[in-house]
């Protein structure tokens, strides 16, 4: 079947490229070429330069959660001694790895794996972990590498208690990227391709530019962009930013949004009553519910911090500049910077309030929510609410509590406008 990309909508492109990436990983596996599992904001550039297929456990686990397949995986990991307290992405992925391992050992597909609604991805030959979103990843990837007896590349980006990233930190990160190269050469059995590396860096930068443009569309009031869509399109900034897939898809999406804007077709039609910032990961197993309650109130998500997580605008060819960008990812920076980013997002996206996901899975993203939100409130005057949830453990979310909190934010925002 011939595929005509040009005729596809951005949403079709998103799905097509995602399946193409998974297909590539499976083909690599079959042909004995390396497959790497990667954390969501690790330097993909060096892997893509070596044509190593990349799979992304967080995105993969999110997919399983969104398709209501999380419970089986979570129960399986509990049965293996993993505490319920651990990040549910990690629990799901470690289960998936164990099940693939069992399949490889016995030749029989375990029932839970057969029923898993997530994408079919192969076992990795190596893993790479960058702790710019959390240190949980370090422990999770340790376990993957140990259980599979494969190399674990750690690109450690020390938490930034002050900004900008200090010079000795940039040097340390650059040295780690350099040290990873011989590992890749060994896995691939050939010399590192520096020319391709440079091209891939330039590509990454182009992808990021388009990614940031999408978010800019939310500045229009009313907005043609429904911020919930970023949760989906994010898959490509995670999985394909170092290829042209992401750039092309985002370019198309921006064009579609521009067209909507020009023809007055806004995300919520003429029902955009309130705009808000969503802080935190989506509640994948309850995505529909979380969206519906908001929509009923005419509350449109326009402010997202996701753009700033992949704000990787470094100077191609400069490893320290690249290291700095991977380090100053929003989640790896101090409260002051975090509050600054949130306040700017809220202002740029003309928001009337802030919703914070108090994520049971994610200590890093929620212990500071209270402190951050009150700084944002001081700076912007915007009201905020927090709700209890979990990105992929469906048991940790209460629809009733969520609805009440959303309703109260709506009322506070109305009050504020008067």
């Amino acid at each position: 079947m011939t595929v005509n990309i040009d005729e596809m909508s951005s949403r079709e492109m998103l799905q097509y490229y995602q399946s193409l990436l998974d297909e590539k990983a499976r083909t690599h596996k079959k042909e004995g070429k390396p497959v790497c599992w990667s954390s969501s904001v690790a330097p993909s550039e060096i892997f893509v330069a070596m044509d190593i297929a990349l799979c992304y456990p967080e995105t993969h686990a999110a997919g399983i959660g969104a398709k209501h397949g999380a419970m089986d995986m979570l129960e399986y990991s509990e049965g293996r001694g993993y505490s319920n307290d651990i990040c549910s992405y990690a629990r799901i992925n470690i289960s998936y790895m164990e099940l693939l391992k069992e399949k490889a050992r016995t030749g029989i597909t375990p029932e839970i794996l057969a029923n898993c609604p997530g994408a079919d991805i192969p076992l990795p030959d190596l893993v790479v972990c960058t702790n710019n979103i959390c240190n949980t990843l370090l422990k999770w990837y340790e376990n993957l590498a140990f259980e599979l007896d494969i190399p674990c590349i750690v690109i450690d980006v020390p938490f930034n208690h002050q900004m900008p990233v200090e010079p000795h930190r940039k040097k340390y990160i650059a040295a780690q990227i350099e040290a990873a190269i011989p590992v890749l050469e060994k896995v691939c059995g050939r010399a590192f391709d520096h020319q391709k590396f440079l091209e891939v860096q330039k590509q990454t930068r182009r992808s990021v530019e388009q990614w940031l443009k999408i978010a800019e569309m939310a500045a229009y009031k009313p907005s043609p962009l429904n911020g919930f869509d970023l949760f989906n399109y994010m898959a490509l900034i995670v999985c394909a930013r170092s290829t042209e897939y992401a750039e092309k898809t985002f370019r198309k999406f921006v064009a579609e949004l521009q067209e909507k804007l020009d023809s007055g077709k806004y995300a919520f039609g003429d029902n955009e009553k309130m705009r808000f910032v969503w802080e935190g990961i989506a509640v994948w197993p309850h995505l529909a519910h979380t969206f519906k309650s908001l929509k009923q109130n005419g509350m449109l998500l326009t402010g997202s911090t996701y753009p700033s997580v992949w704000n990787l605008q470094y100077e191609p060819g400069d490893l320290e500049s690249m290291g700095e960008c991977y380090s100053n990812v929003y989640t790896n920076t101090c409260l002051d910077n975090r509050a600054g980013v949130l306040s700017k997002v809220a202002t740029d996206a003309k928001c009337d309030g802030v919703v914070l996901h108090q994520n049971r899975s994610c200590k890093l993203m929620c212990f500071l929510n209270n402190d951050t939100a009150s700084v944002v409130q001081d700076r912007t005057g915007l009201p905020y609410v927090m709700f209890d949830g979990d990105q992929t453990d469906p048991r940790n979310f209460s629809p009733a509590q969520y609805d009440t909190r959303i309703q109260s934010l709506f009322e506070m925002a109305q009050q504020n406008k008067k």
Partner: protein
Amino acid sequence: MSRITEILATFDDVAAHPRKAIDSFIQETGKGAVGFAYVYGPEEIVHAAGLLPVGMWGAHVPISKARAYLPPFACSIAQSIMELECSGVYDVLSAVVFCTPCDTLKCMSQMWRGKCPSLTFVHPQNRGLEAANIYLAQEYRNLKERLEAIIGQTISDAAITRSIAVYNANRRIMRTFSDIAADHPDIIDPLKRHAVNKARFFMDKARHTALVTELVDELNRLPKAAWKGPRIVLSGIMAEPDGFLDIFKEAGFAVVADDLAQESRQYRHDVPDASGHDDPLYRLAQWWQALDGCSLATDPSKHRGAMLIDMVSRHKADGVVMAQMKFCEPEEFDFPIIYQQLDQAGIPNLMIEVDLEANAFEQIKTRVQTFRDVLA
């Protein structure tokens, strides 16, 4: 009172009343104290300035004020430290130093509710590279400069080098003590063993070393105890509150070695020699890189399990007790693999949740008694 009893009583007193120990240090020396919150910090830098480095490992206190700042699923030690912050317990300190090996500490280091200044540094988690040592030495240098500004005095390399020697001497005698204590569980019961360890965090190191040396000498004079009870290795972040170890004491257990962050992980290896490196801060960085088998120091080879198995055989232990700090994610990731390894090696093991706030231990008691029956 025998000399042994006297020395143990001193350690007990210091461990039970840290504030008293800190106050008397300040009174005697006219110098201040700096808190380390917590796990692994370059205490030698503070020691070199003549100040008292103090370990902040929470306490057995009810949690109330901390609830306003931390959700219920923050680990027990974070809750406890936050409670003490809010209660003004740390206000006697001149500064506190946070390291951030886990996500909880990344957050805690930014929510400081005490009165004195709080400082931070970040350990490298890529632990094989020379670049990691260079990076950490610079982190320590920055930390040192900020400390100097707070305490109003400079800290020389020579002084830090001397403090490293003082600390290494303490590490050596603590290793010796840990081994000898295993031969005398009738005298050094689990609680006393813990008090000797805990007192390290609130006493001048040289004084601690002198007392432990004396204790070791006294113990050396005695014949080894003929011990009938089960011998265990403890692993985890820490084994508190005292009610926890009391159960083991009452059930006739001997702690013959530990892999606790609060205890032997602090001293199971020395800060390396100066060979080739005159910079004491670089040597302190090398200590971190050499730290093995700790859930907070990234290790894709997961050496901790093998290390525990080795400890069991070296110390002729009957089993391993994993003291699992409530809601500590780094530890929770290690346990499933360690269980597998211990089971494969045929080593009985028991996991007990550590909650610094706990007052009721009935359930734990029952499990410990059952475990004793398994080991018998």
